[in-house]
């Protein structure tokens, strides 16, 4: 029969990475919804999974698709308000500047946004970023590069 580990193990080992990635890409307030959808989809598909070697990559691929669904459902709303920062209070670069970075990340094109998240929230190498986004390694590299360039410019 299968050699898939108990799904509980998959959840325990990857919940932090998936939620971290989603928090950095769809934002803190919608991360949980996408997290639930990601793991429900994963659990449904799990018994049919043929290759159990890279379960983290598999989950982050599903999470990336859920994030894209989420971006599209939201339309191209550039900068959501009320996420992580107090209204009227200018954000100052502190030790946990998640609110500020999130607003800028949210303004990036979707593939750049995901590439940046997969690289710096999950420490994924270019090859796995490409797999998660269903693109070539070159395209993943370009998305990452462009995304970073924009963020550096905005946050400089």
């Amino acid at each position, binding site marked *: 029969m299968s050699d898939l580990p108990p799904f*509980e193990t998959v959840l325990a080992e990857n919940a932090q990475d998936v939620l971290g990635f989603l*928090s950095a890409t769809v934002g803190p307030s919608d991360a949980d919804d996408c997290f639930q959808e990601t793991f429900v989809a994963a659990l*449904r598909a799990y018994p049919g999974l043929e290759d159990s070697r890279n379960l983290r990559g598999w989950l982050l691929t599903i999470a990336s698709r859920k994030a894209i669904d989420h971006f599209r459902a939201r339309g191209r709303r550039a900068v959501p308000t009320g996420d992580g920062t107090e209204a009227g209070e200018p954000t100052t*670069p502190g*030790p946990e500047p998640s609110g500020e970075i999130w607003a800028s990340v949210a303004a990036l094109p979707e593939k750049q946004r995901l590439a940046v998240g997969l690289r710096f*929230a999950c420490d994924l190498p270019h090859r796995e970023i490409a797999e998660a986004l269903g693109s070539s390694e070159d395209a993943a590299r370009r998305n990452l590069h462009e995304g*970073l360039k924009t963020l550096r410019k905005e946050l400089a």
Partner: protein
Amino acid sequence: MTKVEDMIEGAARAGRVEAGAAGNRFRSRAEADGLVDVAYTSADSPAGPLLLAATDDGLVRVGLPNQDCDELLVDLANRVSPRVLEAPGRLDQARRELEAYFAGELRTFDLALDWRLSSGFRQRVLREIDAIPYGETRSYTDMAKGAGNPKAVRAAGSACGSNPIPIVVPCHRVLRASGALGGYGGGLEMKRALLKLEGTMK
């Protein structure tokens, strides 16, 4: 200036700390949506923590305190379904009945059982064992006979040893014909304690 990379990491870190709560919400939802093939939880007993696991059909596995919980879950994933999740709700009744049993307040379990982890002669032996009343004991020879093969005493002993649902299917009530304890997956000390609880041993 904080580097962009560090800021993204910071945003991810802020999310990661919520993973425990998000995981719990997911477990509840998965169980409510019928996506959990094997639900499990742990329960207290005087001998230490037990692992309880159930399918839609009923209680499928009881892990004794001396058994490795992770190994049991891997075995369930391989033999039943990899959709194994911690979902205590489905095991509420089993946990309550076991508590009452250990408190000496319950003599007969009223739980649906899933026998799929045993088959053939072994399962027939286990079903024989399931019929031994509280406070009584039988011999391995009795079990072999009851399962339809009086000569297979050794095989009956090994069927007892492979019991996936100990305590509830009371293999501790099976002794050697001489009255000696025989064996027990949870250790002889536990077997002795269960027999004392039931008043069959001083």
